[in-house]
């Protein structure tokens, strides 16, 4: 049954999936060759915003995800 607990697992797994995306192999090809230019005049498209979001998630969430993954793995091993 879908509930808050399952939603938590789904969120963690999706964030894991975003966090392991490889910058050179995947993201660069996804957007094309658009390096993040500061103060640039390129118009904001959905692609660039998505790339910004993915980079932000990778930067911010990585240490938090490590902790959560370890806790969940131990929980599933002991009580699951």
């Amino acid at each position, binding site marked *: 049954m879908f509930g808050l607990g399952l*939603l938590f697992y789904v969120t963690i797994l999706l964030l894991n999936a975003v966090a392991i995306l490889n910058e050179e192999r995947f993201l660069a090809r996804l957007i094309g060759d658009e390096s993040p230019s500061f103060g640039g005049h390129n118009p904001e*498209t959905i692609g660039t915003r998505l790339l910004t979001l993915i980079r932000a998630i990778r930067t911010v969430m990585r240490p938090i995800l490590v902790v959560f993954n370890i806790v969940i793995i131990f929980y599933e091993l002991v009580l699951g």
Partner: protein
Amino acid sequence: MQYPSASSPPLHHPVPQHPVHFQQGGYGNPAGAAQSGGTSRQPQAYRNPYAPPQGVQQTAPQAQPSTIQPQGMPNVIPNVPTALNSILSDPNAQLGFEVGRNALNYGQEYIGRNMGKYMDAGAFSYYFQVSNFYVFRKLLLVMFPWRHKPWSRQIVRSDSTGQDTYATPREDLNAPDMYIPIMAFTTYMVVFSIIQGLLGQFHPQLLGIVTSKSLALMVVEISFLKLFSYLLAASSSLLDLIAYSGYKFIAITLVTLAAATSSSLVKWTTFTYTGAATAFFMLRSLRYVLLPESSNSTSTVNSGMRQKRIQFLFIYSFVCQFVFMWLLL
């Protein structure tokens, strides 16, 4: 900031650095040097046999923390009452109490200010300023949104600050509120439980399961909406989205009632009508979030982005509303 600078004089004054004839020099010490060593050195000075009684009288009352006193006192038994009295009446001690009280007030004020930053009570109270008339008209609007004409929210200019804010739900029918969504959510729980009870299938666990499922689906829907409003560069208030996503519980309650009392055909007819009404309501209401008036924001919303926003608004309102309502049933 206020605390250490104001409290340091009473702390470093009483510390005797050396035997008595150096005490005058001890007063002139720099502020930082004496602070940490003060408590450990004081008993040593009291045990000094050459210390005259009036020297102790001078230093003892000025000692700021009262816990130091019992350690140093037994060596100067005759002076205990005078020392204690002079602690309470000493102007430096009074100053210390005053500083402590100020620091406490300042700390409380600081906590209150930062709590207000994260949990803005004013932002929540906006969504609960409803009246009976508003609730009645809003319920009618959600169910029969077809002929309603002006969908834009009213803007009022407050006299005190001169800022433009949206009118409260009490004054504006188009403003989002949280009273109706919360009440509709609760009503849905109660109706669902009663129907299960009439069927003889009620179990207390059922309440938790249904609440958890509904909340999880709402979280999914709101994060979906928030993600796309980020991708489409539309500024959206999270509380508005929470409020709008809760209106469909009215429709879900009606469908649940219809399913319990009538045949399958009536249930799906009700589902189609209420779903379409809610979707139309959402389409019109979320328009100001995703497609702000050109006068409001002259910022860079190019036509391609605008086209995508319109498409997303349509897909979200009709397709996603029906999917989520179907999942919630």
